[in-house]
């Protein structure tokens, strides 16, 4: 099966290149592998969130009024503002990738810090949003002593809506927090001089991850917040 005398690339040819791992033949193969790996990772993320979006869709179909009533408890203005903040973070993330392509260490770090800043603003706003839900008795965590006492409870399905609201936004926020950890790692990586114009998969993949997390929010915002604008107020609207 093998003609062992003919070697395409001598095993030792590329050992002088510090950016090339031993088991790859060349930088292109390495780069393509990293990119494909990241896309596959995002495919599994898609299915992970897909499970929740699927369950959301089924209950939205079971309880259209409850979903409407639940959604009307959310603050569209704050949600929209936070969406803009997150989009800004996506922009700076794209700038970080660009800086990596140009080989600007400083640019990468600056733009990632900006991205982390926008991400933090988003999470702080989220904290106050959650707090508001707590004050209004909209937290459905009965085993933690946080009973769902809001008057909207009377509408069948409204409490379930908030299970999904916290489940989905919570999972989204968790992904952002994990992203922060990865950002720190990317910054260290960059400071060590491991990000160069010919090898910057780490920054590229970080960008893909961050954009994916943003896209999840782009779907969450209409499904959770804008849904309630679509009809007459059901009950106990605060905003």
């Amino acid at each position: 099966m093998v003609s062992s005398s003919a070697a395409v690339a001598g095993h030792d040819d590329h050992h002088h290149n510090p950016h090339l791992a031993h088991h790859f033949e060349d930088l292109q193969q390495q780069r393509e592998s990293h990119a494909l790996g990241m896309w596959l990772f995002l495919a599994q993320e898609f299915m992970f969130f897909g499970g929740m979006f699927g369950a959301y869709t089924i209950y939205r179909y079971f309880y259209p009024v409850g979903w409407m009533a639940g959604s009307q408890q959310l603050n569209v203005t704050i949600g929209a503002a936070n969406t803009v903040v997150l989009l800004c973070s996506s922009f700076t993330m794209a700038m970080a990738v660009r800086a990596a392509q140009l080989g600007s260490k400083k640019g990468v770090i600056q733009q990632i810090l900006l991205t982390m800043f926008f991400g933090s603003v988003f999470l702080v706003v989220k904290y106050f949003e959650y707090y508001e839900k707590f004050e209004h008795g909209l937290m459905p965590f009965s085993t933690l002593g946080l009973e769902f006492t809001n008057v909207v409870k009377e509408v069948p399905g409204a409490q379930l809506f908030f299970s999904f609201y916290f489940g989905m936004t919570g999972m989204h926020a968790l992904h952002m927090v994990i992203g922060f950890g990865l950002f720190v790692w990317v910054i260290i990586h960059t400071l060590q001089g491991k990000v160069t114009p010919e090898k910057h998969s780490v920054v590229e993949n970080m960008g893909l991850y961050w954009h994916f997390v943003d896209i999840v929010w782009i779907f969450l915002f209409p499904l959770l917040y804008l849904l309630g604008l679509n009809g007459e107020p059901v009950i106990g609207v605060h905003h």
Partner: protein
Amino acid sequence: MSSDGTLNYLNVTHGLKSWLLTLDHKRIGILYLIGVSMFFAVGGLFALLLRVELLTPEPWFIESDTYNKFFTLHGVVMTFFFLIPSIPAIFGNFLVPIMIGAKDMAFPKLNLFSWYVYMVGGFLGVGAIALGGVDTGWTFYTPYSSGYASSQVILAASAAFVAGFSSILTGLNFIVTIHKMRAPGMTWFRMPLFVWGHYATALIMILGTPVIAVTLLLLMLERGLGIGIFDPKLGGDPILFQHLFWFYSHPAVYIMLLPGMGVISEIISCFSRKPIFGYNFIAFSSLAIAILGFLVWGHHMFTSGQSVYTGVVFSLLTMAVAVPSAIKVFNWTATMFKGSVSFSAPMLYALGFIALFLVGGLTGVFLATLGLDIHVHDTYFVVAHFHFVMVGATVSAYLGALHFWWPKMTGRMYPQTPARVSALLTLFGFVLAFLPQFVLGYLGMPRRYHTYPDEFQLLHVFSTAGASVLGVGFLIPAIYLVWSLFFGKLAPANPWFAKGLEWDIQSPPTTFNFEETPIVKEEPYAYDGPLPDNSEEVLKAGENYGV
């Protein structure tokens, strides 16, 4: 293990640290072999205890609560920690890079990481046992699991959740490796069917596993925080849990089966000394099974509140899986037809696979039939069916792979006679254990029951006897394989005169597998008839080869 002085992946470095921090896909495969064998022993022990308890119609040495915990732990351990990782994580890891002419998997660090993730999952599972066990069944059905069970549900679910990530990362590594790391000339249709099987498996791992992850996460949130995703009291739907659960867990059966089918293609072709019949059909039927597998989950809910229309659609789709499965069986049979068949231990396991898979697969068509399924749903008939597929077929393939590639992995030969005896013993023990269960189920014995009417006792005793024989059949290989590590004859590079890149390199291979990147010029399975029976090489190897 090699004592002839040559350097290989096993003796190149020494010490525990060199193993626990290894990035070599072959060493990681061995690490998985150790972990998986451990959990197989645990799961098997629980199975034997269950069978012993079922010798009598009334409880005799464990209480019903304990019985519930035993069958749950048997299911959880065997499914998530043995069957799903077994062939891909051990043999896939070891062989996929070699078979395509690569030096390693695309992401060696990720590969090692996924072993640690798997072990953490495993110890969470063992922790759940140690802290009192779980009694929900391995399926964790709500609302019992989320609201009523007072056992270690969260710990056991998190064990499966964590193990899932190991599976996802392994699948990701396979796909990137197969896409990007093939040697020059190794075109898609020159890849061994073992690699095709793993490609299809990896697709399921990546697309299916995250769904069980989010489902178990929602279950844990519901149980831990009291949110009502599946809780009928809050408007939730427990059937939704079943839908999400089986969306992964049915395809998971094909995670267990497809790599095994890849193993069988390799073994059958080698020991028939003929090119595999219908290469393209076998390759594409793997993909077809992977895709169809995602469209059949509803057959688990024929009796639990699904519309008749939906039931009919799922019934037809489920029957459709029989088509690619049958294509494989026909092609293996056609490969053997007029071949020069010899009965070495790996071949005996492969033949056992075909026989048991045939029964398991055909009874799957029975169960896909709506009317019949109403009668035998949740009975021993179902238990027997899935054990034929998951234990009969997959474990045969697993042991076949172990016997086929053991010389390559360890550099040692094992004795053929006890290997052949144990192959036949496992086949006999398995059939004795599970054939009576088809009858029991048809007569109305429900699964997961601790007690049963007196008239079922004879069949239960047969089943327990078979399980005991099966246990012995598993024990014998453990003994002679370990023995072979120390006393076995040194293995040549190609003890079976097989085709494929892994047989062109030394046994055991060196760390980077190939001195120079190979250039592949030959079609796969280029076997050219029987071995000349007077060749010196063959005569010398005769004892091992079984000619």
